């Protein structure tokens, strides 16, 4: 084991390589970090898991589809931000959700457990899931989520 071979994501966020101690962490903000939180499989799967959790917790409980979407987005945002999203924020998230459900479907998602709720076709459940995942990715990349 090479102790000085740091976890790449940490190094991109200017973590120490552990060869030397750090007196102070410097503020850091590079495009490479954006690529990590957008594309690193860890964050991709986190977004997927978040979408799965929202689907599981809210999905089957509400019958009215319109209302269900509002609840899902609000819940998803709250899980990430630890506060209620503002109406303006929810409107952006909703916009993305709608755009994503309308987009031509690419390869179907894999690992997540997807239960289609009653009366909803598998196709639309997949689109719903994919859009919730896109929303999750946005939330995890918000300055408000990354900066504490």
């Amino acid at each position, binding site marked *: 084991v090479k102790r000085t071979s740091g976890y790449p994501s940490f190094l991109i966020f200017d973590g120490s390589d552990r*060869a030397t101690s750090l007196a102070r962490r*410097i503020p850091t903000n*590079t495009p*490479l970090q954006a*690529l990590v939180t957008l594309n*690193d499989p860890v964050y991709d799967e986190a977004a997927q898991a978040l979408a799965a959790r929202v689907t599981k917790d809210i999905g089957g409980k509400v019958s009215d589809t319109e209302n269900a979407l509002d*609840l899902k987005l609000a819940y998803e945002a709250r899980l990430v931000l630890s506060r209620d999203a503002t109406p303006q924020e929810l409107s952006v998230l909703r916009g993305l959700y709608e755009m994503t459900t309308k987009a031509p479907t690419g390869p179907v998602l894999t690992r997540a457990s997807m239960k289609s709720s009653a009366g909803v076709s598998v196709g639309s459940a997949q689109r719903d899931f994919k859009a919730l995942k896109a929303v999750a990715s946005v939330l995890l990349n*918000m300055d408000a989520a990354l900066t504490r």
Partner: protein
Amino acid sequence: MSKFDLSSDLHPERRLSALQAQTRRHFLQSAAGGIGSLFFGTMAASHPLIASASEIAKSSSERIDVTRDARNPLGALPPQFAARAKRVIYLHMAGAPSQLELFEYKPDLIRLDGQDCPASLLAGKRFAFITGVPKLMGPQYPFHQTGASGHWISDRLPHLEKHLDELCFIKSMRTDQFNHAPAQLLVQTGNPRLGYPSLGSWVVYGLGTENQNLPGFIVLISGGNMPDGGKQLWGSGFLPSVYQGVQCRSHGEPVLYLNSPSDVSVQQRRNVLDAIDELNQQNYASFGNPETVTRVAQYEMSFRMQMDATDAMDIHNESETVRTKYGAKIGEASFANNCLVARRLAERGVRFIQLYHWGWDSHGSNAADSLNVGFVKRCLEVDQPIAALLTELKERGMLEDTLLVWGGEFGRTSMRENRSGQVTQFTGRDHNPGAFTIWMAGAGVKPGITHGQTDELGYEVVQSPVEIRDLHATILYLLGFDHHKLNYPFQGLDQKLTSVKSSRVVAEILA
């Protein structure tokens, strides 16, 4: 409290941690009826990002105006006056290479080799490791004179030697730091303490960069150790963090995660980024933290890098002949590969390219850190690549507007190191902040000259001393700046790369 009773299925401790995650910003916003956000909102309206520094600048003739569209913080700006250099490639030899084994020929030191060091040279000096009375030590490698300029050079750099007439030596460099990390910080940020912007950050802050699809300030490290000064060496200090140097990996993929996940199309990625940008803009409107806008800019850069960065960094795209010229091998983390990448980045309009090599700390305490073993390897690692870089820049007409800087963070002593009073089988020299050699080449510097002089032992500067801040002033001048006027208000001071001490442009070396 909200539509979702999260507390019902959460352990109290988790709930506490959620509460702790709330920031003071939210407290100000909600508890004080939005007074906090009103305050920050006003601040934001009158001082949008980047313009904040420059708006103050408008009221003062002593600061360069770097106003830019906040969404395009790296946009290219014209220099203050006609510049000789458009870009910089800085080759930092971390550990401090011995000038006495490379460029500083001191015949008297050969004569005095093995003799006790005179007390006059030791009085009042602090050394990192030397104790008691050390012995003087002559050059460990033979020197010869070469080229039209008649420079002296040792036999360790046979490739670079062919370019000797293009190099401009400063043999009278001085520093006031004798440990690596603070000395490197001084060379790269103008200050031995943490928290100051690096040379590259200042340059990109002042000039922006020509290629908006790549970062303006890129850092490459040739495997081995990180420089002791750490990532602060390319940090942006108090400047907006968008001017921070971007370190690309030297082995494997240069930039990780350049590709979107397989189920995300380009259009979908664009949609996601638009949503992130809009949310961040809302956040900025509420709280007015300029770093939020920086983040927006960095996300946009990441999107453009997804298109362009792979090609820029990929030395597969070079012919075998070119790679051989540098000694670059695909897949290796080496200074050679980085020199080749540096040329590719320079061609693409990257403003400041910083290469770090490592392992030059030749104390003689072990094989790797000695003049007989490690130093020999280090010379082999850098000699051919630097020569190839010079050749190629010249062939492509880029040496005219590219400034190359080579150097360490201090010099090495004229005495042999006697760590703990012991003399080992390896030879080495201790740190010497009193004198060291750097060279520059290319844009705007006189080729084939030597500036400054040290005493007959190469121990102290006796003529035309050049401080680090003088070097900085000179580099900024070559890029078109008056170093006094490239400043930024922070902590009640117009902060400059060259600090508050007096500094001068070394006019003697300007072409």
